């Protein structure tokens, strides 16, 4: 985030009173929303890293009676075959975060690379736009399900699939930014002094798209976490590992679970965990995205750093 802010200050100085040229690069002030988001993500990350240390048992070990309700020995009870729910929850954080980060990295790399390429020439631009259009015209969720159903949803397969299908809209946005950046006078100046197109892209255009890329990266993490959980929920998860989506699937596959009270420890914890993690990424993603929006739409964003001129 600091990176994003600094890049903006260096390459696109804000010409407001007192901010430039006198001021140092300003660090962005964090609103309550993104701060909560970062805290939650940090907490989930800590749980994921420390899972073997703090979990009461392995996620697949049979340590309790089947469907045991929460007790001092098993804080969140046990599932239908006697596996500790708390342990599964902690280990599940690993899967969600790993898939989310890895898939988003792949997707960002593709989208960013293709978006920058579009600035190289009109031919590349046409190719990139066409590819992005094709990605947008594909029914994505059925595609993911198809691949998962065929290949089995082992983690590498899920990561690669999600990374390969989620770059379409993102590449379009980066492409738009690259195109508008390429039309600016300083690019013309750079070209006039004989800078090569590739150097222009890497030194001038690429840094200008960093804020957007960072924002979109976080949004893609959120997308990948949801998609992975949805695959698990559909029963297409990898049976050898435990993810939050799998836990919900296992419990909610029969609607009867809701007739007793066992859903309170079988369905609620993993569903809540998914919801909270996704919301955390959304909070951070929006506040990053807000910084990349131009003037007026910025005022419409709920997470603002400065009072809006629309406020009565």
């Amino acid at each position, binding site marked *: 985030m600091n990176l994003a802010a600094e890049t903006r200050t260096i390459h696109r100085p804000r010409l407001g009173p007192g901010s430039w040229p006198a001021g140092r690069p300003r660090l962005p002030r964090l609103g309550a*929303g993104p701060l909560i988001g970062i805290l939650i993500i940090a907490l989930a990350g800590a749980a994921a890293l420390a899972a073997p240390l703090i979990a009461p048992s392995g996620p697949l070990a049979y340590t309790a009676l089947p469907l045991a309700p929460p007790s001092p020995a098993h804080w969140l009870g046990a599932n239908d075959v006697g596996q500790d729910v708390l342990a599964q929850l902690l280990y599940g954080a690993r899967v969600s975060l790993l898939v989310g980060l890895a898939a988003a990295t792949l997707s960002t790399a593709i989208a960013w690379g293709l978006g920058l390429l579009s600035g190289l020439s009109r031919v590349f631009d046409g190719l990139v736009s*066409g590819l992005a*259009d*094709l990605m*947008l*015209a*594909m*029914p*994505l*969720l*059925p*595609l993911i*399900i*198809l*691949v998962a*159903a*065929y*290949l089995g949803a082992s983690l590498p397969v899920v990561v690669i699939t999600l990374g390969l299908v989620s770059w379409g809209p993102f590449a379009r946005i980066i492409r738009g930014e690259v195109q508008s950046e390429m039309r600016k006078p300083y690019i013309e100046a750079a070209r006039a002094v004989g800078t090569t197109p590739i150097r222009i892209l890497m030194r001038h255009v690429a840094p200008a798209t960093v804020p957007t890329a960072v924002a979109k990266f976080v949004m893609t993490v*959120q997308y990948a976490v*949801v998609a992975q*959980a*949805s695959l698990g*929920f*559909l029963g297409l998860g990898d049976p050898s590992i435990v993810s939050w989506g799998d836990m*919900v699937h296992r419990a*909610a596959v029969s*609607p009867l679970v*809701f*007739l007793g009270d066992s*859903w309170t420890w079988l*369905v609620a914890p993993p*569903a809540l965990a*998914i*919801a909270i993690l*996704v*919301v955390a*990424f*959304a909070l951070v993603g*929006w506040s990053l995205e807000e910084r990349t929006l131009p003037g*007026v*739409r910025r*005022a*419409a*964003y*709920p*997470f603002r750093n400065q009072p*809006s001129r*629309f*406020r*009565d």
Partner: protein
Amino acid sequence: MGFLYSKTSWRLSVDSVRGLARYPLLLLALFSISFALPRMLPGDPLQNMAAGGGQDALIALTPEARAQLMAYYGLDQPLPVQAGRFLSQTLHGDLGFSISFTRPVAALILDRLPWTLLLIGVGLLVAGVLGCVAGLWAGYQRGRHQRLSVALLLAGSLPDFVVGIVLILLLGVMLPVLPTSGAATPFNACGGGALFGCAADVLRHAALPGLALTVVQLPAFFLLMRAAALGELGQGYIVAARARGLRERSVAVRHVGRNAVLPVITLLGLRLGTLLGGVVVIETLFAYPGLGQLTYQAALARDFPVLQALFLLGGIAILLINALADLLRRGIDPRLRLEPAR
């Protein structure tokens, strides 16, 4: 079709022809992917059949029987021949014959399509209309109702199955007013004269999955409309309209609303296309017999004809709906007609 022409001269402009030329290319690519993707992945329909097809006992396929079946379904032909047959069949309006369902693919899809359409109709249209109205209202409130926006943003980022589970708990279990699964009560006398009761039953079954879809989709429309309305409200022509003495309602609907709804229509088109491909998760949670469930079952059964038809039709639907949304935007905003057709 006037939208396709340039405003100044009534000739089909070069740009719009170039824009339209993208469609055959996209269709060709879509066709290739629909054909290749199911076949690229491991497994084939006969393996699934040999494994019992998920229903019957194991069938032991002798090599001869297997070869016979492969020939029967045309799966022993070289891939280019299969692709050519798929293309010519499709162009003749024949989508082929499902291997795992042993029915024509077209009939299979037509069976499921109404349910998905009903679900999308209930869910997405309510979300779109409600989102537009509420977004316009919230835009008029300027900076107030920040909490509402934040709450909606949070709700809109939740996975659909989490929303669905919460709804099942609230309206199906704690306050059991709505059915939580299926599309109609089995063995309900839907055939006789009880048309009204039948429709009520179907709507009751669609209510909960439709509501889940609405909750998931509404925030995006609301927020986009609100942002667009805020942007329009800052424009000079609004002041001019008020100065002319127009009623505020007319300003809100004809000026602010008409301009602000344009990006919302684009979003509606995108979402509609995506959802037509199948509301897989919600359909699975509520055991709703729509296209999403069909995709899921066909993928598990490696049913090539069904899969390629679903992909092709899904892609065409997305293209068609986006083109329609584009035309609609041109109808609403005359300025857009000056730009080349996309």
